[in-house]
């Protein structure tokens, strides 16, 4: 019955195909509806639990208060200045730290991955460095670099570096022996092998680590601001904490979450662009 079935999009699609398409569309609508419903239910129960005095807004705040707080910050600005400029400070620290940390991580990971001796010598120190809870370095950086941007950037760099380095190193080590041998026989120099075979092989590992490490960079910047700063979302949170303003803490969390989601979206777009040679099933992100 091949003559009757046709590809989708064809006006002569069979009843079976139409039914299958309709089913897929319905399922997607159901998912979206349930997502919205879940959010509405959560927020309403939170709000009503506070209104009916089941939980104390002093500790848990309430959605309406958080909304008001955000509204005040957006229209009148925060105690430290306009919300945008505060966010900009944190973003600048995060992005600079993320860029420096990932470039250093990629460079060191590939260099050590390609050089067996250097890899064996340094691997123990990298393990030691990785074992340190890196957030505590924040205190050292505040002493070293002061209360300005440099100390936050430094903390974001060390947060990012180890993750990216580890993945780049692993990616280099996992590069297919056959591909490397093939390149050498086809006439490649060691340098050409590094740039045209090893780096592209490691790229999927590296890009995977960038997703995680952007979040780490944000953690580094915000924690650095907790420890001591004049501007930034981290300071906003610690000020809110100091005045027992739970709504302020939640509002800051929302601002940071939005930023992290946007960054995640941009990184996914970058990944899809750079890794378009991969089979489709590996590129899907289960949205």
């Amino acid at each position, binding site marked *: 019955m091949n003559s009757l079935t046709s590809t989708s999009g064809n006006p002569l699609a069979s009843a079976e195909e139409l039914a299958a398409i309709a089913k897929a569309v319905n399922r997607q609508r159901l998912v979206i509806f349930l997502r919205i419903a879940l959010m509405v239910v959560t927020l309403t129960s939170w709000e009503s639990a506070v209104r009916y005095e089941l939980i104390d807004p002093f500790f848990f705040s309430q959605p309406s208060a958080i909304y008001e707080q955000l509204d005040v910050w957006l229209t009148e600005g925060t105690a430290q200045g306009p919300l945008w400029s505060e966010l900009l400070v944190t973003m600048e620290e995060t992005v600079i730290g993320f860029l420096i940390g990932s470039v250093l991580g990629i460079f060191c990971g590939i260099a050590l991955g390609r050089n067996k001796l250097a890899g064996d010598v340094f691997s123990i120190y990298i393990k030691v460095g990785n074992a340190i809870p890196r957030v505590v370095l924040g205190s050292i950086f505040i002493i070293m670099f002061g209360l300005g941007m440099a100390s936050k950037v430094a903390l974001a760099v060390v947060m990012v570096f180890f993750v990216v380095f580890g993945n780049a190193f692993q990616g280099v080590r996992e590069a297919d022996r056959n591909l490397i041998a093939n390149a*050498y026989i*086809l*006439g490649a120099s060691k340098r050409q092998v590094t740039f*045209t075979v090893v780096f592209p092989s490691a790229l999927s590992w590296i890009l995977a680590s960038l997703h995680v490490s952007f979040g780490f960079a944000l953690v580094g910047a915000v924690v650095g601001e907790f420890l001591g700063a004049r501007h930034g979302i981290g300071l906003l949170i610690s000020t809110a904490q100091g005045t027992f303003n739970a709504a302020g803490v939640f509002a800051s969390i929302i601002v940071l979450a939005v930023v992290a989601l946007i960054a995640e979206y941009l990184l996914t777009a970058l990944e899809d662009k750079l890794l378009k040679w991969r089979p489709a099933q590996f590129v899907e992100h289960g949205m």
Partner: protein
Amino acid sequence: MATPVIELKNVSRKFISAQGQVTLALREMSLIVNEGDFCAIVGPTGCGKSTTLGMITGLSPPSTGSVKVFGKPVTGIDPNIGFVFQADAVFPWKNVIDNISVGPIYRGKGTKMAKDMAAEWVRRVGLSGFEHHYPHQLSGGMRKRVALAQTFINEPKILLMDEPFAALDVQTRALMQEELLGLWSEKKASVVFVTHDIEEAIALADRVVVLTRGPGSVKSSYEIPLARPRDVSEARYSDQFVHLSKQIWFDLKGEVQI
């Protein structure tokens, strides 16, 4: 007599693991391949067939004995050598045309010239229309064609092939064998073709070398008197072919039986 293209003399190869365990892969192996020869090597698994090829490329030097290519001891990778791997060794992040043009680019030709050469090879291996496809979008046979073009574009004088068609289905394999003979007959490179398939060895080669079980050395060698150009799919039904195939199988059986 002219110097042989490849000469292995009393070659042994040991592998020493990180735990200090020594494995002998080849023992006192000698082999001579003359210019334009198509030599197939068959042998039981683990007899050192791939090790032999590795030594000719210079990727893994012998423990004792000498390996000479064009009369000179092997010290590194010879630019006259081409190698076709068993597994897919085409670069998954490059499309067909970029995969085929890497050889000339590595060897210092300009991108433009390399691309022009590659375009010609795309046509020769019958992949026109697939220039911008990535390897994962191609079938196993098409990827093998890319691998062949990638190797042939460098015009190797020595072609080493390590069970190149083992992963293909029977029909595709027969097609690829025809194709290989076609490409080879144009340039007449010297070929060392490793396989575990006796019929493939006879259908393609001028000479079939049988190795003993590991650690391998040469057990016997057969001249294949089938006329060229050969029709691979026809040749295998001739009496001569069947007779040779029986003889070689008999030789090999002694080595695979436990």
